[in-house]
């Protein structure tokens, strides 16, 4: 039973954006009734059929590691969190659509996870120097962007928020999904969100098991300075 292969996917994001609800929804297909703060890391497992519907269909375990905390917390917590970032095959970045700061903090989260050998020095430069998209384009770890609390955006702000997240997904070179973690219909089978999700997991599995590139596990260890232009929308 436990002889299926597995991949490890991190779920990162600010405190309170809905990572635990999201993971619960993805793994148990149910809405989380009583969300509470995640202390440390909580893991859940989803069974995914790689290349479903084709003759090469194979089942894998996808471990979703939901790491709690905030990006600006004490360095002792950051160093302890770093043990969870080993041998990561994919990252899901979660942000709150009603809170701009949670989206901005995603840059620092991604750096923290990919750059675990040195302290997170991601400097967000607000003007000048072009954003270095190539760093994320050749990034070996697939990313997925998920925006939560979609139902809480007032109608008149919806376009503005969606444009902002479109820029964000371009910056990370990742697909984006916007949903409400308390409503399972956003991820119902057949919706475009479900297709994107399944494509992401397929990509993660492919990168892990079907690429012949030996350096697929390296992170940004040799790069020390990062310049981001995150102010498309500010």
């Amino acid at each position, binding site marked *: *039973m*436990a002889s*299926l292969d*597995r991949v490890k996917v991190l779920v990162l994001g*600010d*405190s*309170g*954006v809905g990572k635990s609800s999201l993971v619960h929804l993805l*793994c148990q297909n149910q809405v989380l009734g009583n969300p509470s*703060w995640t*202390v*440390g*890391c*909580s*893991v*859940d*497992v*989803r*069974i995914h059929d790689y290349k479903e519907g084709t003759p090469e269909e194979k089942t894998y*375990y996808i*471990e979703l590691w939901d790491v709690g905390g*905030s*990006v*600006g*917390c*004490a*360095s*002792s*917590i950051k*160093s*302890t969190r770093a*043990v*969870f970032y080993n041998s990561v095959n994919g990252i899901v970045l979660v942000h*709150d659509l*009603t*809170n*701009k*700061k*949670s989206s901005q*903090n995603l840059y620092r989260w991604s750096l923290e996870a990919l750059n675990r050998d040195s302290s997170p020095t991601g400097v967000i430069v607000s003007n000048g120097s072009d954003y270095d998209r190539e760093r994320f384009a050749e990034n070996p770890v697939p990313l997925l962007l998920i925006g939560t609390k979609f139902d809480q955006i007032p109608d008149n702000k919806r376009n503005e928020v969606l444009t902002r997240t479109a820029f964000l997904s371009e910056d990370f070179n990742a697909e984006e999904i916007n949903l409400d973690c308390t409503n399972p219909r956003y991820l119902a089978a057949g919706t475009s969100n479900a297709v994107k999700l399944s494509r992401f997991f397929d990509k993660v599995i492919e990168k892990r098991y079907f690429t012949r590139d030996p350096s697929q596990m390296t992170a940004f260890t040799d790069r020390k300075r990062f310049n981001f232009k995150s102010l498309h929308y500010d």
Partner: protein
Amino acid sequence: MSFLVDSVIMFTSQVLFFGFGWLFFMRQLFKDYEVRQYVVQVVFSVTFAFSCTMFELIIFEILGALSSSSRYFHWKLNLYVILLVLIFVVPFYIGYFVVSNIRLLHRQRLLFACMVWFTFMYFFWKLGDPFPILSPKHGILSIEQLISRVGVIGVTLMALLSGFGAVNCPYTYMSYFLRNVTDSDILALERRLLQTMDMIVSKKKRIAMTRRQIYQRGEDQNKQTGFWGMIKSVTSTQTGSENLSLIQQEVDALEELSRQLFLETVDLQSTKERIEYSKTFQGKYFNFLGYFFSIYCVWKIFMATINIVFDRVGKTDPVTRGIEITVNYLGIQFDVKFWSQHISFILVGIIIVTSIRGLLITLTKFFYAISSSKSSNVIVLVLAQIMGMYFVSSVLLMRMSMPLEYRSIVTEVLGELQFNFYHRWFDVIFLVSALSSILFLYLAHKQAPEKHMAL
């Protein structure tokens, strides 16, 4: 004419304080959140501005700046405004935001917010009963009633924070108390944490696989009809779900263990960082300060005990007493009036600045520790309330640190409160808080190495 000039000066300084409070809110407190309700930020900055104005008026009193009638007027004005804010505005908004968070009561928020406010007022009024703080000549709606109660709450808060701070400060500064942590300890704990996570993962895999098989079997069995088909489906799902609940219980226990291990690892990491810090120059300096503060703390506890046991309240302030000592015992003659003014200015200034800074830092730490995106508004308002009450009572208590001629304005403005009572109350709560912090820290210190022994 001078009144106009004075008012303009006061107003500009208030605007400056307001701006500072605004910036502090935006940059420090709400660093990771988005401000959606600007009224919260405004209320916080207003409370901060008016509290700082009170301190400013004390400084002006000592320096003799502005004319005394305009000072008196501004004292009164400031006091009324701050009482209005602390008793009406802030509690009402706290009730309003708490009620808006609860989905059920969302519709009639205003009504429920008013109800909450009335409950608050009831308890606030009742607070005055057990304390001998009023003399019978005060009417029921006088300002003294309100100030006395605010004073009680504020003095309690001050004494609690002060007592804990007096004990915690040497404990954190001195490296004597640092437990010895080696890298291998941390690595061993991290390995245990990862092992626990692996166990949780493998159990969850079993649960997921079992569930999937039940689901698939359930689909097959829906096609089975007949008597035997039904019996078979009941028994097989029964054992499946029993297994599941057993594994789920194991998972819950392991998750609790993983949380504990995580927190212990964080603790060890922070101790290791403190050990490294103590080896630096800054660390050594703080270590030395720690010894100094521990002596100060012991002396304060001793003095508080003496005050309570012998029922005495200091009559003279430290400045006058210091001057007396220098003049009488050391025989140094100098212009008492001139120096008393300057020294009290410096002393009071230091007290004010350190208490503001200390309070803001403590509030920020508290806020980071307990706030979440839903409750951030409520918590900030509670902190604003605490801050306002703290500052009002520090004005009350500061009266003791000033020479007689400057005390008069405080006595006049705040009315005839039983100031001695507040000092006694402060001593009592300070003693209680300091002793219980010592006990608490001792227990925490003892417990930690035992946990590691059990590994």
